[in-house]
């Protein structure tokens, strides 16, 4: 027992000193989930993220000459573990990447006190778009409300939605409920009937009841907000129940190649909205191959790298790196702190030129953020599964943000009020 306490004391001490010694790098921890029921979607994302930063470290010696420490803290997508990871890493971190809507919601209020920016690309709480209220949270390049809006636009492009029926198959979890306000809004204005069908965390792999309901309701479209093992479950059930795949549209987290490969040809026609796209010809992929893959520093593999999720991981890290670089340029120091990174993330300007400069050609649409706009609203492409891989099935769609800007502001204000005292950034519009 004595031995044990000594060991524990030693490790604690080591942890503290290690924290002090980390000054020569930019500590950007990632609250990853390579385990648990959502690992299937998590692993390629984490690999893409890690590989891009590893590439920067290997090729450029980091960003602005300072290496990035992209340490992972495993959450297993559990909110509890996520908060633990946040607490553990926040000391030296310049950014936190919570990776789940649940964890994001929990750390959101804490970041106000700890002054650490949350980077939640394409997930989290949609009203985070309002930078005046959520000073520390970023969900660029697009939020869930954007996704819902684009999906509705796409469905409308196939014919009026008036009198139609849209089933909304979603995970019964904060993430799955996120787009409801926008979908409800559109249902009312466009005259379609919205049928929300929740999938419990426990039934992700056995959705026969949900798909029986879909069969009974006979919807014109099924829109899916799925994650992890739920996607594969839904897609196999859809094939089994002979639901027309071209009327089945998922959010960007439901567009994972591996989930579709299970059904292969039978899944052809399935669609997923996305703000990222795999382009193996993009220079960045070649750089990753050269500096990371060939050097044997990856946990990924050839097949995974061609997938949507790996490339999305790459884009996410690129956004972070761009935020860091912007901050470094503004403050004239390579070793930026969390507060400076926030400025950087607020002033990202991903133009076509910049995207091409970074070697991300065709992998992400252009977008820009500002102090008041933390989402960027990049828009996205509708991807379609052709039986073997995802292909672009539409031009770049743009969400009609104006349509729900008021709703965003209202929800953000509501949130701030129920969490009073909540600091807001009054100076924001002036600075803009």
């Amino acid at each position, binding site marked *: 027992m004595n031995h044990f306490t000594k060991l*524990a004391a030693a490790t604690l001490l080591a*942890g503290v000193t290690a924290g002090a010694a980390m000054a020569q790098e930019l500590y950007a921890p990632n609250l990853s989930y390579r385990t648990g029921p959502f690992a299937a979607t998590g692993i390629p994302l984490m690999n893409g993220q890690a590989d891009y930063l590893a590439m920067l470290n290997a090729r450029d010696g980091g960003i602005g000459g300072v290496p990035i420490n992209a340490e992972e803290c495993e959450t297993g997508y559990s909110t509890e573990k996520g908060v633990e990871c946040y607490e553990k890493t926040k000391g030296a971190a310049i950014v936190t990447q919570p990776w789940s809507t649940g964890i994001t919601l929990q750390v959101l209020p804490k970041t106000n006190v700890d002054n650490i920016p949350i980077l939640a690309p394409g997930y989290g709480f949609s009203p985070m778009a309002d930078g005046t209220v959520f000073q520390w949270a970023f969900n660029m390049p697009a939020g869930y409300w954007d996704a819902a809006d684009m999906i509705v636009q796409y469905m409308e492009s196939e014919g009026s939605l008036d009198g139609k029926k849209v089933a909304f198959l979603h995970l019964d979890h904060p993430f799955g409920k996120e787009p*409801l306000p926008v979908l409800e809004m559109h249902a009312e204005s466009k005259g379609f009937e919205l049928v929300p069908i929740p999938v419990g965390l426990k039934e992700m792999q056995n959705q026969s009841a949900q798909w029986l309901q879909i069969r009974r309701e006979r919807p014109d479209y099924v829109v899916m907000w799925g994650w992890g093992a739920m996607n594969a479950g839904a897609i196999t059930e859809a094939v089994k129940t002979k639901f027309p795949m071209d009327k089945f549209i998922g959010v960007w987290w439901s567009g994972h190649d591996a989930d579709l490969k299970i059904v292969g040809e039978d899944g052809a026609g399935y669609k997923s909205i996305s703000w990222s796209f795999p382009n193996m010809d993009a220079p960045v992929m070649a750089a990753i191959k050269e500096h990371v893959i060939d050097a044997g520093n990856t946990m990924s593999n050839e097949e995974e790298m061609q997938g949507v999720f790996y490339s999305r991981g790459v884009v996410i890290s690129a956004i972070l790196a761009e935020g860091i670089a912007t901050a470094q340029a503004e403050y004239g120091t390579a070793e930026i702190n969390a507060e400076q990174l926030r400025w950087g993330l607020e002033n990202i300007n991903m133009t076509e030129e910049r995207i091409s400069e970074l070697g991300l050609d065709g992998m992400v649409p252009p977008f820009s953020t500002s102090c008041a706009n933390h989402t960027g609203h990049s828009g996205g492409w509708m991807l379609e599964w052709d039986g073997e891989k995802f292909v672009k099935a539409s031009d770049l769609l743009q969400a009609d943000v104006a349509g729900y800007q008021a709703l965003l502001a209202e929800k953000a204000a509501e949130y701030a009020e129920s969490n009073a005292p909540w600091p807001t950034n009054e100076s924001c519009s002036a600075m803009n």
Partner: protein
Amino acid sequence: MLYRTAGQFKTSYQADQALFPVKQDAFLLGVILLLAWVILPMVASEFVFQALLIPVLIFSLAALGLNILTGFAGQLSLGTGAFMGVGAYACYKMVSIFPEMNLIVAILLSGFFSAAIGVAFGIPSLRIKGFYLAIATLAAQFFLVWLFEKWAWLYNYNASGAIQVPNLDIFGIFVSGPQAASITEYYVVLFVVSLLTMVCINLTRGTLGRTWKATRDMDIAAELIGINLMKSKLTAFAISSYIVGVAGALYVFLWKGAAEPNAFDIPLSFQVLFIAIIGGLGSVLGNYLGAILIVGLPVVLNLVPNALGISINSAMVEHLNVMIVGGLIVFFLIVEPHGLNQLWRLIREKLIIWPFPH
């Protein structure tokens, strides 16, 4: 020699039934209290508060609640997580409806809601026994978590379906929510946990405690010597659920800051059960020992590879963690099925007769 009890005579029944008839025990408790109330808060870092001290206290309390039911009254329950949820949601609704309410009062009141639900789900225990009852408590577990998800009123119709702890203050000091300092949260938790531990010690050593233990050891005999089994079991469910509910309110309001329905799902129930069993069924102290082990172990395990300079990815650490906790559970059950409490008791007995072997 340190633990010599010779020479400590009791001259009244009162003295004999005092909490700590042995002086050294009282001394030890004093040291622990001093540590908990004064020394630890002075030296602890933010991380230690959040990852060790506060969760250890909260989980100890939850395990203590479960131990009343399972360890003292003999009714196995797998629904602890859901009852913690009832406490948390009750507290959330109270502070949303009465924002002026003192948080500690709200937390102590929220226990009554889980007690009521606990009694309702305890009624089957009058007819169902053993594992059948354990599975029956799973009905409470799954049903309640489902209800937390479906009943939007419970989470004030938040779009996310999660409950979020607001900033609440007592006499101008923030005690919960993101603005609260860890040390304040710690003291609130410590106060509530100390208070309820005291209550539990008193209840378990007195009339009610004997009633429960008799019910646990042999329910038929208990009934034949005049124990109303219904009352005995239902009081156990009520008091156990009360404590578990309070622990649940603390868990959300003073530790996690927010919670989704599935935070109260079965893994939480199992975690509390592990603590109670590894600590020792039918003991009060054991819950603390068990919580230190189960909460502390993953934290230490996460630090070990770093300290040894081995780089393992965090997923591997997590897998190893799960594996080691599983292995440890089996190991402890084999080494000492009566838990850490029994281990401590044996050490103490050895100390009392030390330096003689017998």
